[in-house]
């Protein structure tokens, strides 16, 4: 395989890792206003992702930087073309980041309600815009012969991209719910499990519709054959179907299936895109491809060595972090972050 395609694959891996991980912490955020019944439960629900959300978001930083380094023309066209959409993403992510650190810093109910809402709004908003943005890469946006975007903000909103945005929300809400069934106990667990069963239906329906449509869009707008996109799409639908079945009793396996469903959704989108990285519409010939957007061979070779050394190490210590924080959290057990900014004592 040539280095350009290898790096396309690596970037797909980074986006997959990002949505697999941040997908459930978006989901946990989306459910914050609806599932917990009191302050203790809200604290527990936030703490399920408290130690790991920043490590999850790292994969976005990595995906962005890797795109810059390996496909400068793709990075330049996408980030400048999707300007206002990315501005919105930044807004949603920033209020979300701050909600984690700042919410616990005061006990005032108003303050806490505001930051809880910020977390939820940030989670819905970021999921929606990511769906719209990534789907637009495939659906096509107007590019000139230099690869510069010539459209308006509204060119990003096609029926397909809006479907993608809504699907991302439904998928991550379900993924977050199955995650919570693994990390909570007691009354909160019961309510989360019930919520996961309900959420499995929209996730399955929208997910299946989106995956099938993606294959169609790939064939009609990106000159692709039915195969290979149909393969990850079919597997993705199967994973979501299994998740919907398993969530009625086997919550651990349901989480594995929502994780798989999320990854396969990302993989379907990018498989449908390859060998293009950004489709131009109406002038298809201006599309950016893996070849014309990539860095030179030497840069890609250097990056390959860097990725080969660092990615396994990052995966290892992140897996260890998840192992450290694998314990279920319940309303009756004191959380390891203080509910009030001051109440915790370390065990010394």
């Amino acid at each position: 395989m040539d280095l350009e395609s290898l790096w396309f694959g690596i970037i797909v891996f980074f986006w997959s890792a990002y949505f697999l991980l941040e997908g459930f912490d978006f989901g946990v955020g989306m459910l914050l206003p609806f599932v917990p019944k009191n302050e203790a439960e809200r604290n527990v629900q936030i703490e399920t992702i408290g130690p790991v959300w920043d490590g999850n978001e790292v994969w976005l930083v990595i995906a962005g930087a890797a795109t810059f380094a390996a496909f400068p023309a793709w990075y330049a066209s996408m980030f400048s073309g999707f300007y206002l959409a990315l501005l919105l993403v930044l807004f949603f992510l920033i209020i979300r980041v701050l909600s984690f650190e700042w919410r616990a810093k005061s006990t005032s109910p108003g303050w806490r309600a505001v930051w809880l809402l910020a977390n939820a709004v940030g989670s819905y908003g970021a999921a929606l815009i990511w769906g719209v943005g990534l789907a637009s890469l495939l659906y096509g946006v107007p590019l000139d012969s230099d690869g510069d975007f010539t459209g308006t903000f509204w060119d990003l909103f096609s029926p397909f991209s809006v479907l993608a945005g809504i699907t991302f929300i439904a998928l991550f809400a379900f993924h977050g719910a199955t995650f919570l069934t693994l990390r909570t106990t007691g009354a909160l667990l019961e309510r989360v499990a019930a919520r996961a069963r309900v959420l499995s239906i929209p996730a399955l329906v929208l997910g299946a519709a989106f995956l099938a449509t993606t294959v169609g869009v790939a064939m009609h707008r990106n000159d692709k054959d039915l195969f290979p996109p149909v393969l990850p799409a079919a597997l993705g639908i199967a994973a979501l179907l299994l998740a919907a079945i398993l969530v009625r009793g086997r919550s651990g396996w349901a989480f594995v299936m929502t994780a798989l469903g999320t990854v396969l959704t990302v993989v379907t989108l990018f498989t449908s895109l390859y060998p293009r990285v950004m489709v131009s519409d109406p002038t298809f010939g201006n599309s950016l491809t893996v070849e014309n957007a990539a860095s030179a061979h030497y840069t890609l070779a250097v990056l390959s060595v860097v990725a080969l050394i660092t990615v396994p190490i990052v995966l290892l210590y992140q897996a260890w972090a998840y192992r450290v924080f694998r314990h279920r959290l319940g309303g009756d057990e004191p959380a390891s972050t203080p509910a009030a900014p001051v109440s915790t004592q370390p065990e010394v």
Partner: protein
Amino acid sequence: MTLASAVDLARLQFATTSIYHFFFVPLTLGLGPLVAIMQTIWHRTRNESWLRLTRFFGTLLLINFAIGVATGLVQEFEFGMNWSVYSRFVGNVFGAPLAMEGLGAFALEATFLGLWIFGWNRLSPRLHLATLWIAVLGTWMSGYFILVANSWMQQPVGYKMVDGEAQLTSVSALLSNGFALRAYVHTMLAGLIFGSIVMFGICCWHFLRGREVDLFRSAAKLALIVAVPATLLQLVVGNRFGEAVTSAQGMKIAASEAQWNTCQPCGFSVFQIGGFTADDQTPKFAITIPRLLSYMATGSFDGQVQGLNQLQQQEQRAYGRDNYIPDVRVIYWSMRVMAIAGVVMFLVAAVGAWLYWKRKLERARWFLWTAVVAMALPYIAATAGWILTEMGRQPWIVQGLLKTADANSPSVSTTWLAISLSFFITLYVALLVVDVWLMRRYARLDASADPEGDAPAAAPAVGY
């Protein structure tokens, strides 16, 4: 009506967001190791007061770190959003250290800081301490890769030009760029100065209030042990860094001295009125120290420093007709603001250490107030330093290779820029207000009581 151009707005936005980002980064760089040292002392001695200090300053570190992360994401996106021509031009070279930063450094700091914050009860004390040191290592590695990227814009190395874009030819040349190594030492020292001066200022504030004096005396001692050598060393390193700039960017040095004509030996202008524009090259009034500029720029008291007029002629011959002289007034003053702030911080640290040694620190109220106010100095110095570095490079975005005016995103209209600029200013001002409110609230907390005052005084208070 002449409105600002797209390039002007893009520059203003990048300047605003990166200066703001850099309010939080160096404090994290400096406070991180200081908190890690406190926890290490607690780990070794089991002295409860060091645990309380760890948690007290750890909270400030985390409030600050959150904004650093949030605003850092903006920086990464902004290259592509606002500077698409630049991104295509440099991506082959400039993208590599950013990718290395993400994979090798940021992942480390984000993951391990999470482990540290939530790991008090889950990890053994030794392992828990290690997570903080690893997170600190991550922040320091992160700084290196970012400065490698920035330094390539100041002094491009290890590349060749192919079809109008820069391509990497030597990653070792990129990573060992002399400019980057000097910038790294300068910036990490700045981080330590941030951490120690802010920590010292907070201690002095507690002395003024007369609360927890014994506890904060230990912290003040630690802060001074770092601040005195760091501020002193920075005066030397900053000067050496100037020499590196002289060889890579003569225009920047000449502008920072408002040196219009080549001189040998050259006096250092301490203060001057006028003499900042091509039409007005002779100052109306100036205080000059003979030969000092020669020494600062070249390391020799007889060194030659090229003047703006001569450099302008050289660059015109090399690159065509244009104005290659940056805004002399801004560069001249930003250099002096940075240097004066650096000297004052050294004096604050040195006087503080002397008072501490004489056991008079807690009662020297005039000095305590000075130290509290001095917490603003690292922020002023860092901002002036970056203005000098980035505006001193103009009109280039990559020295000698690409001009700023040619580098912005053609697809981003002034309307979009106006929207995003107002957005960032509004959001960032709001965040700053909340951040200062939170930092104040936590910094004035007695390390043993909570803000609502209902925790038992014996508790090692202030969680995260």
